[in-house]
């Protein structure tokens, strides 16, 4: 399973994850308070400059990471071209691109394990409601282990469906996939219990 972390080490990789997350919280919140076009565009340019300073490869990955935003940018462009309120349209688009790109930059320069460690720290108070950090750690490991397994299974199910029907796989392959997941869960739970279970 690939993570979204950029494989080449940049100077930002060595900044502790907690600092980056804290900075991101403050910066992203501040960005949503921007209300004039020059400020919004300058902030976006600063974020783009940060990408370019880290290297062309980082900038390229960053651009492709925000491709999901283009439909929204298109909607805003059409909307504001229609209403005639161009400045507001520019503000919304620029601060959206800036905030998402900055967040993606943090994701790209932080190892998945460091992120998961932060997640575990945040989840620690959950032990008061009976969710132990140990069980969260096991659950995370199981998720990462089983995603490729299920993807592979879904692939085989849809191939089998196509071989029999001659059509593209329909929603019907989801049912056997759910069954296989439930059966695996029983087997894995038994295996865990046989090995002494999850300590509290």
């Amino acid at each position, binding site marked *: 399973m690939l993570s979204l972390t950029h494989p080449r080490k940049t100077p930002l990789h060595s900044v502790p994850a907690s600092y980056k997350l804290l900075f991101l919280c403050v910066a992203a919140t501040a960005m949503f308070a921007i209300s004039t076009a020059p400020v919004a565009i300058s902030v976006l340019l600063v974020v783009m400059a940060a990408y370019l300073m880290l290297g062309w490869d980082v900038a390229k990955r960053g651009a492709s*990471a925000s491709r999901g*935003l283009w439909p929204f940018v298109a909607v805003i462009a059409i909307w504001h071209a229609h209403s005639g309120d161009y400045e507001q349209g520019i503000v919304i688009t620029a601060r959206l691109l800036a905030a998402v790109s900055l967040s993606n930059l943090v*994701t790209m320069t932080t190892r998945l394990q460091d992120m998961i460690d932060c997640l575990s720290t945040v989840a620690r108070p959950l032990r008061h409601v009976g969710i132990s950090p140990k069980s969260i750690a096991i659950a995370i490991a199981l*998720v990462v282990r089983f995603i490729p397994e*299920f993807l592979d299974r879904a692939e085989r199910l849809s191939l089998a469906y196509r071989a029999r029907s001659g059509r593209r*796989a*329909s*929603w019907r392959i989801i049912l056997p*996939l759910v069954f296989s997941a439930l059966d695996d869960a029983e087997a894995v739970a038994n295996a865990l219990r046989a090995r002494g279970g999850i300590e509290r």
Partner: protein
Amino acid sequence: MERSVVLIALFAALIAALGLIPKIMLTSGVPITAQSMGIMLAGTILGAKRGMAAVALFIGLTLAGLPLLAGGRGGLGLLSSPTVGFIIGFPIAAFVTGYIAERLKRTNIAFASIIAAFLGGVVVLYIPGVIGMAVVLGKSINEATLLMMPFVPGDVLKACLTALITQAVYRARPTSVLARG
């Protein structure tokens, strides 16, 4: 204890897999992504608490940087994007779906599941979804609702499929449908 943890984890993995498989076809030839169906199924099968835990685990790992959201998206950028309300709403949707399924457990399973999946996975999910879109795109609630309308028919259809799948699971593995336990 072990069974709960494993069921939650494997359902989180299932939701991820449903978003990453190529779009599947409905009989009419309309392609859909199955991920939001996974959210509804987590509620109707695992029930309120475990369903929410499975979805929260999935969202947590996605935000941490695994590209698990439909289309291979992930990372912290999701929290500043227009779909932020749906990201936050997913665990709530699973909880409400599960809660309603549990309340209706004495009624017919297909009926209980379709009501639960529709109220939890569509109505309740769209509330934070629309609010998030309104805030990020600087639109009014009514305008944001209008923008989301094209997605409603597909989601209603997914609620129906969720009911069919839950019913089939209940028939074959009654003990696995914890919402009825």
